[in-house]
């Protein structure tokens, strides 16, 4: 029941998370920051802009991204297979990539290529994480994870740590905000979207927040208070990291993901399998 509500109102919750994040970020930079409802103001404003399409396929792919993203979340929350949720997320990002590379703007094309690099970096990590959950809980089903009476985080400390460092890649945050890179490619894949179509991307991001933090929540097992603490901790950690690092090169990101994060997670999985 709760998960159904969260799924349906995911854009709204995501918006709040994003609103809080903007305030937190501003405070970390000793600024006042925007009001909490700012993302929604942006949302309604974009609604009202004149819609300009590059071509219909491009616009369609933007909307596809939003829908697939929402679908991935629905699959995740409504008690289906974790692995399927991960693959739906892949589809969502692929829609974005295909849309972005279908236009002439070189920023958009570069952004699409970089987005692919992101996928190469974080998707194996996601799969590994799901596998590690399976090894702990013995099931791919989210319900079983949420009813697991142990503490998954105790079995998966390295996986949690690796996932913590993967979140910036998923959410486009410094040091891994490479596909968005405002100062380099002006938003990358999203550059050619405007008005209501940009909105699809803008809100898609919010859903991604919920999607990512649900995974963090899972590390608490059936102890929801632990899950909540982990979510708050990782939220703060990611934002602090965002505010204390420069953007790295995509080569470094891929190397970091494959040389550090994935081995760490794999080590944890191997240890689990052995014990």
């Amino acid at each position, binding site marked *: 029941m709760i998960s159904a509500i969260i799924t349906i109102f995911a854009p709204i919750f995501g918006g709040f998370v994003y609103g809080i994040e903007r305030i937190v970020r501003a405070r970390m930079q000793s600024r006042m920051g925007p009001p909490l*409802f700012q993302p929604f103001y942006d949302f309604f404003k974009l609604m009202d802009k004149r819609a300009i399409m590059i071509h219909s396929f491009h616009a369609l792919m933007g909307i596809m991204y939003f829908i697939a993203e929402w679908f991935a979340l629905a699959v995740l929350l409504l008690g289906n297979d974790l692995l399927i949720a991960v693959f739906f997320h892949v589809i969502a990002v692929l829609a974005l990539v295909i849309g972005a590379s279908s236009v002439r703007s070189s920023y958009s094309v570069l952004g699409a290529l970089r987005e692919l690099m992101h996928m190469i970096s974080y998707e194996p990590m996601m799969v590994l994480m799901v596998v590690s959950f399976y090894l702990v809980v013995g099931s791919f089903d989210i319900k079983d994870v949420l009813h697991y009476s142990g503490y998954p985080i105790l079995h998966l400390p390295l996986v949690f740590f690796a996932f913590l460092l993967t979140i910036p890649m998923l959410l486009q945050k410094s040091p891994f905000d490479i596909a968005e890179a405002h100062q380099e490619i002006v938003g990358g894949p999203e550059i050619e979207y405007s008005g209501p179509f940009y909105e699809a991307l803008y809100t898609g991001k919010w859903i991604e927040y919920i999607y990512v933090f649900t995974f963090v929540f899972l590390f608490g097992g059936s102890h929801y208070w632990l899950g909540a603490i982990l979510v708050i901790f990782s939220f703060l950690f990611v934002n602090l990291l965002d505010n204390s690092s420069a953007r790295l090169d995509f080569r470094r990101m891929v190397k970091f993901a494959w040389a550090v994060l994935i081995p760490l997670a794999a080590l944890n999985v191997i240890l689990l399998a052995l014990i």
Partner: protein
Amino acid sequence: MGFFSKFRKKSPWILHYNTGGCNGCDIEILATLAPKYDIERFGALNRGNPKQADILLVTGPVTKNCRDVLRRLYLEMPEPKVVVAMGACGHGGGVFRHLYNVENGVDNIIPVDVWIPGCAPNPRALIDGIVEAINIWEKKSKDKEYMKNHSKDMIKNLGVNDD
């Protein structure tokens, strides 16, 4: 759409283009992004992307070499939009009035809604200007004036060929 118009007041996204002024105004734009004046309080973001911008903030007297870029940026921005000309340069060219490579102000190239006086206007003046621009913007979107306005004629008046 009346419902949505209420909210545009709170989310002006800015596109900034310098058309040949002295940097002075651009420095002040950076200063308003900085913690002391923090223009994000009004929901304003510097997006750097004409397709997602609402307010075009132009500094400088518009040199002949910048003219076409400025026109293109203006046309790329979706309606409704507001143009703010910052500094004395934007109004009649300021100290560069009547120099040979200067168009004497933004108004000669694209329609301007707000002029901010000063050379350079300090961040307070810029904030005043943005607030004024937001009011005009809201009025514009209520009137739906842009719906009539955005015709082939207007594009022709601006003298741009379709690229």
